[in-house]
């Protein structure tokens, strides 16, 4: 049993090492990507734009639920007017980056892994190498940077739509004062503490999810089973990484140690 444990530990560290090398090569593709913005644009479309609908609908409902839940608690203390603050702060600080990252991992991360894994299984990556085209620069790097760019934008859309959803329920249905909803939010939310930190979180999440997704695809066994396992690993590991990192980042940003 100890033998197995040791082997598993060695394997995961070895994979981490390979993943880091791979990340380094991917990052070096930045010049290639900068020189050909068309490649990046196409990937931002498939990684980011195609995820917007999912993010919008989810954001709307999360915001609506927040307002509903928040109202029942806040009204006990007669503090309904701070509903706007509560909805906006939870979204901008936590739910926006985290929930959109989880959705992003499920929608875009899995697609990236499956796409790259299948390209590997059908020898397309190998064929590219033989055509003297580096697949890491040509295929992986644009997808990676597209993910890093898209994630904060998606999180911003999520939070914005969520706040509108909260307004819809809080002001429209539950009768919270419209002026108070917005002015309290404006007065309380801080640009650096709340919004900037939220953007940093979503940048980190985007970086990690896309890294995991492209690496799992590139590293997958070139069989149908290998690709399906890699896709599953992408979603599971990204979700796990997002939740752990969220705690660490929150502790760093807001914790008083």
């Amino acid at each position, binding site marked *: 049993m100890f033998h197995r444990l040791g082997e598993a530990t060695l394997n995961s560290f070895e994979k981490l090492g390979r993943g880091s090398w791979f990340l380094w090569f991917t990052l070096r593709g930045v010049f290639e990507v900068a020189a050909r913005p068309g490649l990046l644009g196409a990937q931002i479309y498939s990684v980011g734009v195609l995820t917007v609908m999912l993010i919008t609908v989810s954001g709307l409902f999360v915001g609506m639920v927040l307002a509903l839940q928040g109202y029942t608690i806040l009204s006990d203390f007669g503090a309904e007017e701070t509903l706007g603050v509560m909805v906006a702060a939870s979204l901008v600080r936590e739910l926006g980056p985290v929930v959109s990252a989880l959705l992003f991992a499920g929608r875009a991360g899995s697609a990236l892994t499956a796409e790259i894994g299948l390209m590997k299984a*059908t020898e397309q990556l*190998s064929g590219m*190498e033989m055509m*003297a*085209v580096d697949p890491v620069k040509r295929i992986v790097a644009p997808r990676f940077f597209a993910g890093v760019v898209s994630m904060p934008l998606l999180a911003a859309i999520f939070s914005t739509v969520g706040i509108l959803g909260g307004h819809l329920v809080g002001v429209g249905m539950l009768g919270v004062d419209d002026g108070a909803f917005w002015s309290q939010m404006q007065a309380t939310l801080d640009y650096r503490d709340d919004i900037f930190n939220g953007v940093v979180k979503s940048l980190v999440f985007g970086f990690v999810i896309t890294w995991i997704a492209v690496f799992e695809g590139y590293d997958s066994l070139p069989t149908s089973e290998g690709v399906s396992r890699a896709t599953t690993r992408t979603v599971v590991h990204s979700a796990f990484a997002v939740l752990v990192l969220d705690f660490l980042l929150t502790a760093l940003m807001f914790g008083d140690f």
Partner: protein
Amino acid sequence: MDEAESDAGCLVTVRNLVFRRGNRKIFDGVNLDFPQGKITAIMGPSGTGKTTLLRLMGGQLRPDSGKILVDGQNVHALGNRDLYELRKRMGMLFQSGALLTDLNVFENVAFPMREHTRLPESMIRTLVLMKLQAVGLRGARNLMPAELSGGMARRVALARAIALDPMMIMYDEPFSGQDPISMGVVVKLIRELNDSLGLTSIVVSHDVHETNTIADKIYILSEGKVVGEGTPGSLIRSTSERVQQFMTGAPDGPERFHYEAPDYSGDLLA
């Protein structure tokens, strides 16, 4: 120094190649010469590492020892940049075709040109149509790879392999899985392209008949070693048992029909 060692008139030379996968020796001191402008075939039973050999030549795998010279350059001593420069002059036809599935036929053939040259669009169009005409698929330019038959996909891949006018092409099992007609097309294309473009062709195959009709020179590999070499005619007359078994397709011979196993009767009664 490297140039001096490679035989005159040979574009690719392989010297004392040793390659292991795990404990298994795929190649055990193999020497091969590929003369310029000729079609040289590598034959052997499945699993003798014929595809591996092509990957070693393309620098995608590293040998454990020995060296491979392509156009006088030691493939595995090159830096990444030089290796990529060399690959631009080497075409490779994968068994599956390895077409990019998100691009149509035209864009697939144009891909190497767009990646490596700054030719104007009109020039690329002319070149792509010429390459497609050479493989008889100019009319299929707007199809997607998924809409092509296996034989057509291989011809598109061939057009792509010659897109940058390479000095050589490596064919990985070009005849396998083809119907008789598309097989004939491929045989004709390999010969025609070799002669008209002045290419050096390396064909890896286990189809004895087709290979015999086009190869100028054949090597037969078995268990990591070269067991026969020569022109198709001389190999058919070879007295070596291994060569005879392979050329005639006898089910049992030096290459055993049975995978290595314990004694049959003992195994059944165990």
